[in-house]
Each structure stands twice: as C-alpha cells, then as structure tokens.
C-alpha cells in the first residue's frame, strides 16, 4: 500500500535552492530509498487515473514560539507528495505546533510566531509577498474536534469552503456531491442535505469537515488528531478515507495513537520536547528506530 519514492528523484521537486531534506539525526535515508509509489511516477498533470499529483512541503530550521515560550526547535523535515506522514510524540512535544505552522495557522494565536523556512514545492510560504489566505487555500486543515458551522446545513457546510474562499462560478451542487462522495459521506446524508450539519454524529461531522476541506481542492491536507474525539468505528472510517485521499493529496496527520500512525502512515516522524527526533518509513520507525528515545516512546516507557 505505502510506497514512498526516493525524494531525490522526485521530478516535481523543483526547489530552486534544494534543501537538506533531513535532520542530522534522522534516519531519512532509509525511507527515502524504500519504495516508489507508481501513481506519482508520471509527473504530467494530464490523465492520472490513479489520482492527482500533490505537492511536497519542506521545513528548514523551523522554530515556533508562543510569546517567550520556545515550543518548536530547529525542525527540518520533508513531507512527501501523495503519501501520509504521521507526527507522533508525547503531549506538548510540539507536533501540533509544527502542523499549524505549515498553513500559517500558528500565527493566529496572539503572541505566537515562527521563524525558519517552509516551502510548498519550493515556494516559500513565509515570504513577505505571500498572502496567508492563499496559503491556507492551498493547504487545508482538519481539526481535532469536528466543528461544522452550526448555522449551516450539511450542503452549505461543504459549499462553505467555496463561499468563504470567494470561489465563484463553481457548480455548487456538483461540488457538494463530489466532495461528500470523496469523504465517504454521500450515501449517509444525500437525503438530508438541507438538515443542519451539527445534527450528524461525531464521526459523520468529522467526515463532513473533511468534505468541507476537500471542496476547496487544496493540495495538502493537515489533520490534527482528527479521530481523538471519535469512537473506534468512526475512527476506522476516517482511516480508510485517509487511504483514499492520499491519491490526490499530501497528507500530514498528528496523532496520539501509535496504532493509528502504524495503520495509516507511510512515513512517521517522532517529536520530543519541540525537536524532531527522527523520521522514517512507518515500518522502520515502529520496528527498528534509530534513536533510543523513539524506541522508549514506542515501547511505552514514557509518554
């Protein structure tokens, strides 16, 4: 299922100044040389039956702060296209902060800021002429708690992305249907599209939020513990959905649940005290981590 390809060979990484892709202590070389997803092999935008080519996100020397609290330290990481990268680590290790830096949501918190370099296929997201709204349109986000807009119906919630982003001329009904199908929710809600979104169950609400996110056709989807408020069955549905979605999107998921990381992720990164300890193929991280701290965490010695 998971077949990350060597990043160095990625034809889409048109990075003008190529990054050193991994932290010194990471075992990235291992995953990089593992497998290649066939669907990304053709790089043209024309006819890709298996899915759409998504973008690479890289961070270089990322530091994030809440006021004088230095929450993330010198994180350099590369998130491969059309793959799922999970971020694990104990509470407060900075994984969610890194995630929120990727679409510049971090700076929404009063007093919070980030330094360093984050690039979406080589384009610096923090460059002065970059519009933060455009960044978020390109990089969608699904939150921990399902939060459909309480004043809107199911259909309106999905279309809200279009409306909020000011996208006009799109066929609303078609977008709603396509997004709900993609989120695996269509069959459950097609007869009550005009009902309020908050009337759905927790798991359905979360899939509604995913539908809302993909309606705007982002390139990358960030997920911040998307299943932590859900029961096991709803969780399973979301995980299946994540498998589907990576055909079209780069997916980065923060999770507390190591089994979940093992189930859904192609690559897994481990954070501790604001630093990236290591990143590698999920199998390798869980079976043969390079760093002893990773091993301690995986085996449940702390966290």
């Amino acid at each position, binding site marked *: 299922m998971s077949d990350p390809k060597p990043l160095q060979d990625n034809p889409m990484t048109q990075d003008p100044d190529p990054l050193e892709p991994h932290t010194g202590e990471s075992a990235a070389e291992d995953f990089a040389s593992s497998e290649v997803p066939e669907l990304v092999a053709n790089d043209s935008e024309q006819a890709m039956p298996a899915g759409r080519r998504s973008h690479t996100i890289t961070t270089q020397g990322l530091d994030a702060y809440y006021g004088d609290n230095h929450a993330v330290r010198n994180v350099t990481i590369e998130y491969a296209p059309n793959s799922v990268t999970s971020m694990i680590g104990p509470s407060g290790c900075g994984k969610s902060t890194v995630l929120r830096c990727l679409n510049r949501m971090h700076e929404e918190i*009063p007093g919070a800021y980030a330094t360093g370099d984050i690039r979406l296929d080589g384009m610096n997201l923090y460059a002065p002429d970059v519009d933060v709204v455009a960044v978020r*349109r390109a990089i969608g*986000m699904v*939150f921990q708690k399902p939060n459909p*807009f309480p*004043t809107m119906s199911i259909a309106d919630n999905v279309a809200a992305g279009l409306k*909020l982003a000011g996208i006009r001329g799109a066929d609303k009904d078609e977008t709603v249907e396509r997004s709900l199908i993609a989120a695996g929710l269509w069959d459950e809600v097609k007869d009550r599209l005009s009902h309020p979104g908050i009337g759905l169950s927790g798991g359905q609400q979360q899939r509604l939020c995913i539908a809302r996110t993909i309606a705007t056709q982002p390139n990358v989807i960030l997920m911040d513990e998307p299943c932590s408020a859900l029961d096991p069955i709803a969780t399973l549905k979301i995980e299946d959905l994540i498998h589907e979605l990576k055909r079209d999107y780069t997916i980065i998921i923060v999770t507390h649940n190591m089994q979940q990381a093992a189930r859904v992720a192609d690559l897994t990164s481990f954070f501790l005290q604001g630093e990236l300890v290591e990143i590698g193929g999920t199998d390798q991280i869980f079976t043969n981590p390079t760093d002893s701290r990773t091993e301690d965490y995986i085996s449940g010695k702390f966290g």
Partner: protein
Amino acid sequence: MSTGILPPISARRRRTDRLMSGLFYAATGIALVPLLLIIGYLIKEGASQFSAAFFTTDPTGNFAGDIGGIRSAVLGTIEMVAIATLISVPIGIAVAIWLVEYGKRSKPAAIIRYLIDVMTGVPSVVFGLFIYVSLVETGIGGSGFAAWKGSVAISLLMLPIVARSSEVVLELVPNGLRESALALGAPRWRVIATVVLPTALPGLITGSLLAVARGAGETAPLLFTVQAAMGINFNLSERMNSLPLEIFNDVQSSNPAVVTRAWGAALTLVLLVLAITLLARIVAGRSRLKP
C-alpha cells in the same frame, strides 16, 4: 437517623446551615418585593388611564379640562430610540468585532475596553450636558433642541452596553469555527461575515435589545437635548415628546388629573421596556452559544 457508622452532624452546624439557607431565601424574596410593589402600584394607579383615547390623543397642554392622552409621547419615544439604535448598534457591534477579532489581548484593546467600561458608568445626565454644549448650544443642524440630538445622547448611553454585551457573545463563538474557516482559505472579513456573526446573531440581538430597553427609559439626557412638545412631530430637527419627559413633567403638576396621566404613561413605559426585555430573553434562550 444517624446511627451506627454515620457520625452525626453537630446540632450547631446543622442550625447554622439552616439559618444561612433561610437568609439566602429571604434575601432573594426581599430583592423581588420592590419589583412586585412597583408593578402593582403602577397598575393600581395607571391602569385606569388605559383607554382608546389615552393612546390616540396628544397631550393638549391645558392645565384643566381636556388634558389629552400620550400618543405623541409614545411615538416620540419609539422614533428617538429607533434612531439611537441605528447609531449605536452598528458602531457598538463593530467595536466589539474589533476587540474580539483584531485587538484581542493587546494594549490598545485593553484601553478601549477600559474606556467602554467608563462610558457605561458615565451618568446619563452628563451625556445630556455634553450633547447640550456640543450640539444644542451651538445650534448645529439649524436649531437648538432637536429630537436627533436626543437620539445621539441616548446612543451614547446605548453604545457601551451594545459593545460590551456583543464582545461577550463574540468571545463565546468557538475559536475552532474561526480556525476552520481560516484554514479553508477564507479572508478574515468573510470569516466574520459568514461564520462569526451568524453564529453569534441571537446574542447580538439580545445585547442590542437590552440596550434599547435602557435607552427607552432614560430621561435625563432628553431634558437638555430635546425638551418636550405637545403634538406629534416626525421632524427630527425639532422638539419632540417622549414618555420619560411626559412623566417627568406631568408629575410636577398640581392638577391631580395630570399626575394620574403620569402614572398611565409610566405604566405604558414599563410595559414597553418589559416587553423589549422579555423579547431579549427569548432570543437569548434560542442562542446556540452557552457560556
């Protein structure tokens, strides 16, 4: 009953507990007594005034004989408070949006919050004076006393109430909603217009209605800005009658019939304000935002 294992509570502790609970009961009762007394008294004195003629004729100004009803006062109050609402509600909500969405916890926002609190505490009579010197005395708008100046004075009173209550309600909009809208790539104005405001709408209406209720009952600012007139007048740049002023003037009369009219007017005013307040409560009850 306290047998065996359960240790008995000392009689003294139990007595104190009873006594204090009793005091809390009593205090709540005492707080409600004035409300019942006032409403009862108003009904006793004023309800007899209620008649078709009372609401359909204007005060004549005659000392004896036909003194007329309170139609112009009711209409004047409604008109002036409506104008004051049009001024204060948009500005108040705008300031609240700025505080919650932009100012947040910054120093400038703290200053504005303090000023709004101060404004809430400024005596209404002082606002009346202020409008008198800045608008009435200077004859701005081509005349001295004018209804619109009264509206401005009332809006100064309403503004901080609207701003403060709206701020509280906007704070209650879950941050997750803002974040998910922003994460969808929405510019902030669209987040505010399509997510924040609709979610907070019932609360915003409640706050505004409470401000309207306060504005409708205010007398002091009108004393120096509008002054009373007898007849109906829809011209905002002239004097206009209003319920509070009608009451204030009538009650000082030595003609008992005029004083009784004051009670009728007072009952009308209280009913009007109570209706607005209850409406506000009902709207608030529908709100999805619970603190």
